[in-house]
């Protein structure tokens, strides 16, 4: 009784740690703490599970601790090594595969439960077990496919589902049908149908993810993540385990909203991502000044800038047209205030008159020592973290360096491509004064 209360309490604490951890995770300053808090919550939850009262027929069961610890150590070891070894750039894939494994775990639980108790299950219990099975299954194969696509093992075009919406609809119907059938033949060949059900779910996971293209993958992973959260919650319902229920639902809910947010950040709707498949819509900023203001108040870039060491602003005629010099200065002040080294790279012909940028930046009160001319800028660029090009074009055109057919071949330009990151703020992909395309904008 007392033990039970203590485990209950531990679960409660774990659940609160999940909630609070997620909360901390959503702000950059506290995110790390949040992750650790959630991990602590998980440890508490797992620890408490050893003392949970379980319904065994045999009171003297040794609880099979060897199996458990074996699994924990093996899984933990694999996870740890994988997480430490993975390249920074391969992290989304890693997340995807981890997520798939979580889904698989739910599948296993659903299977075990159905296998053990199918014959005398009530509707509710059956429903819950099937839910864990199906959602976990979809999350499993879907995540694996997403992983494959991101790793480049599987090309976007490898798996082509004809009429994907119709096809997926048929699969869904198949899942429901076999579930109903399995329930009706509970005592006879139910388990066979459960396996059919599982198979369809696994296929569904693949056909669900297959039509979705590379850039949209993170959105899909997030969605699959919310699926595996739901499958965990379903599994929790099987065992009436509060921490699983709360944790699962929490992930389900926050994963869903996160998916929506990610779509919004890409200026797309979720439906568009899921159905549209390979869509050509790009980022698409606003126009003119608005465009610029919007872009640079963008949370994302802002934080990237905030945590960088050196930023170079490259103003061009577009800055002048948008009269964005003040906005640029504000950004500068903000970053400088945070210890970021902000400089301006002034190309000799930027703008439409000699000294155009000087006039504007002086108007915005940018101190002279922050202005670098071509040579100084080019020697500073390789050690610059982020370059922000504000309405410049010709003056950062790599054609001047490497394309002898270009009309500006031979002109010294700002070699912004030597910096770690380049952000371009302009209204469109249209060319500048010299009328030539800038291949820079077609890199990544």
């Amino acid at each position, binding site marked *: 009784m007392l033990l039970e209360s203590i485990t209950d309490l531990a679960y409660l604490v774990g659940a609160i740690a999940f909630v609070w951890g997620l909360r901390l995770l959503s702000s*950059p300053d506290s995110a790390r703490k949040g992750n650790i808090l959630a991990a602590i919550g998980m440890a508490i939850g797992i620890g408490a599970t050893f003392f949970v009262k379980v319904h065994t027929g045999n009171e003297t069961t040794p609880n099979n601790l060897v199996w458990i610890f074996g699994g924990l150590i093996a*899984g*933990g070891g694999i996870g740890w090594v994988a*997480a430490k070894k993975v390249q920074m750039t391969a992290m989304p894939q890693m997340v995807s595969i981890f997520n798939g494994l979580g889904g698989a775990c739910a599948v296993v639980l659903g299977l075990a439960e159905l296998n053990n108790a199918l014959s005398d299950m009530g509707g509710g219990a059956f429903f819950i077990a099937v839910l864990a099975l199906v959602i976990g299954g979809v999350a499993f194969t879907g995540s694996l496919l997403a992983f494959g696509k991101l790793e480049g093992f599987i090309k976007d075009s490898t798996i082509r589902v004809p009429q994907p919406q119709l096809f997926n609809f048929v699969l869904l119907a198949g899942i429901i049908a076999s579930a109903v059938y399995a329930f009706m033949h509970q005592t006879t060949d139910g388990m066979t149908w459960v396996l059919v059900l599982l198979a369809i779910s696994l296929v569904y996971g693949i056909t669900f993810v297959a039509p979705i293209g590379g850039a949209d993958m993170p959105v899909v992973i997030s969605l699959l993540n919310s699926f595996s959260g739901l499958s965990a919650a379903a599994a929790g319902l099987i065992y009436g385990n509060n921490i699983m229920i709360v944790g699962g639902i*929490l992930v389900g809910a926050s994963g869903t*909203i*996160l998916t929506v947010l990610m779509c919004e950040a890409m200026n797309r709707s979720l439906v568009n991502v899921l159905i549209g498949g390979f869509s050509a819509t790009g980022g698409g900023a606003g126009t003119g000044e608005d465009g610029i203001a919007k872009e640079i108040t963008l949370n994302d870039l802002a934080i990237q800038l905030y945590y960088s060491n050196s930023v170079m602003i490259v103003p061009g005629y577009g800055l002048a047209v948008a009269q964005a010099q003040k906005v640029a200065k504000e950004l500068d002040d903000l970053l400088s205030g945070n210890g970021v080294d902000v400089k301006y790279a002034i190309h000799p012909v930027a703008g439409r008159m000699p000294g155009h940028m000087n006039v504007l930046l002086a108007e915005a009160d940018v101190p002279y020592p922050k202005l670098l001319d071509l040579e100084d800028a080019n020697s500073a660029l390789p050690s610059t973290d982020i370059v922000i090009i504000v309405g410049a074009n010709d003056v950062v055109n790599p054609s001047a360096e490497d394309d002898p057919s270009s009309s500006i071949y031979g002109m010294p330009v700002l070699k912004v491509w030597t910096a770690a990151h380049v952000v371009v703020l302009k209204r469109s992909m249209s060319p500048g004064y010299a009328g030539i395309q800038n291949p820079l904008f077609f890199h990544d």
Partner: protein
Amino acid sequence: MDSIISFFSDHLLMIYLLIFTIILGFEVISKVPTVLHTPLMSGANAISGVVIIGAIILIRQAQPDDYLTLSLGLIGVVLGMVNVVGGFAVTDRMLEMFKKKVKK
């Protein structure tokens, strides 16, 4: 119908809890900045590894000679543990970039 009603009444508090948890999940996430999308997803993913608890329970309540269940449970524990440990560890690595500099 009746069973639904009775289910509803029996699990009223659970339903409250679920709904409030969902709202809380929304609320907690709704203002997250774009850069944190991936770490947050990764962190949430690690939390969804809570399903491992089910696998542990599965093993604990299995008969020592019920090797099918034990094996299933073992697989579940391994999978879940990879998810949990790997998930938190990867998230932590992702978040490393944010510790670098705090306001001076």
